[in-house]
């Protein structure tokens, strides 16, 4: 497989949100606005790339029986590092994402990629896989966030083009499922062509 296709695969063919349907908890919960979706995507991508690299390096020496605990410890370490760094340098972003940053540990995408890809491939390929899947996840979350923000608040990235309230249901949980469902249909319809 060429290096380039490792990256592009994460965007369409193995898009984590619309095709693999992994990591739904942060996807549905944080995409109340475009900016929140983008920030959550980037945070996950950071963890994904670093954990993929480290896991691909240590995988050959880790005994099979303990590989899951070892992967989880590595992932949890990066998540905590990210959490501390965000708290220190971007407290505003940390305040909005707060609870969902520690939850990246249990995001199926991160462990899923460690198991399915990083554990069996080299460091470079694993890093590229992390970038590809990370970009796919970030774009998906941003798109869901944009749609929900337009319908729910009448704005895009905080820029308001409709005065007053939008359709509030789209900012809340039911709207997340609706938007997610329709986008998934649309995405798979287009991707099949």
């Amino acid at each position, binding site marked *: 497989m060429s290096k380039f296709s490792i990256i592009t695969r994460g965007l369409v063919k193995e898009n984590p949100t619309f095709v693999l349907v992994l990591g739904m908890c942060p996807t549905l919960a944080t995409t109340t606005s475009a900016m929140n979706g983008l920030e959550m995507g980037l945070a996950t991508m950071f963890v994904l790339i670093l954990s993929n690299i480290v896991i691909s390096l240590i995988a050959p*020496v880790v*005994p099979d029986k303990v590989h899951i605990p*070892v992967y989880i410890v590595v992932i949890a*370490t990066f998540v905590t*590092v990210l959490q*501390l760094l965000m*708290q*220190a340098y971007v407290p505003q972003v940390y305040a909005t994402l707060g609870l969902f940053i520690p939850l990246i540990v249990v995001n199926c995408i991160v462990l899923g990629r460690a198991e399915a890809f990083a554990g069996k491939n080299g460091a470079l390929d694993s890093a590229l896989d992390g970038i590809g899947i990370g970009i796919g996840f970030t774009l998906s979350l941003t798109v869901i966030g944009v749609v929900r923000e337009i319908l729910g608040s009448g704005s895009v990235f905080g820029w308001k083009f409709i005065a007053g309230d939008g359709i*509030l249901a789209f900012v*809340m949980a039911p709207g997340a499922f609706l938007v997610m469902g329709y986008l998934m249909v649309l995405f798979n319809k287009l991707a099949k062509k």
Partner: protein
Amino acid sequence: MAACLTGVCLVCSAILGGVYAMTKEPIEEASRKALLEALAVVLPAEGEVNPEAQFIEFDGKNYEYYVQTLDTAVVCWAVKSAVGGFGGPLTLLVGVEKGGVVHATRVLSHSETPGLGAKCETEASFIDQFKGFDTSVKSLKVRKDGGDVDAITASTITSRAYAEAVSNAVKVVKKIQEEVQ
């Protein structure tokens, strides 16, 4: 097998320890800055603010407060007041002048619904009604409950919690004044 897991855990805890030590200072700095910013919003411009937190017990809960002095006389108090909102605790910093007049309020943290209750942090018409709110003539309750606070549309529970938090802060300041005298 056990050695491998132990080794990984050791390395990871060493990394975490390092990052923790590295970010401890900036994190404290950031939270201090956020507090000072909030104090500047809820207290009058003139006078000295003591950034050291003080504590008082009221109604079974411990309240954190800050004192502002002007020429050695205390002119205003800022009380941290938390009440359960719609999605979780709603924590406010409330500036209270002598005589139970609210100077201004500011949300420190909340977990209200985005687009609905979360407006308690941004909607100026809601926040501004608390500026100069005189509790001796007006009642800190939403209109639905017979008070004088205009609730945020479709967010009565959040508005109620907000009003209650402000009301508690005013009561706390009353107690502080009584204790000093």
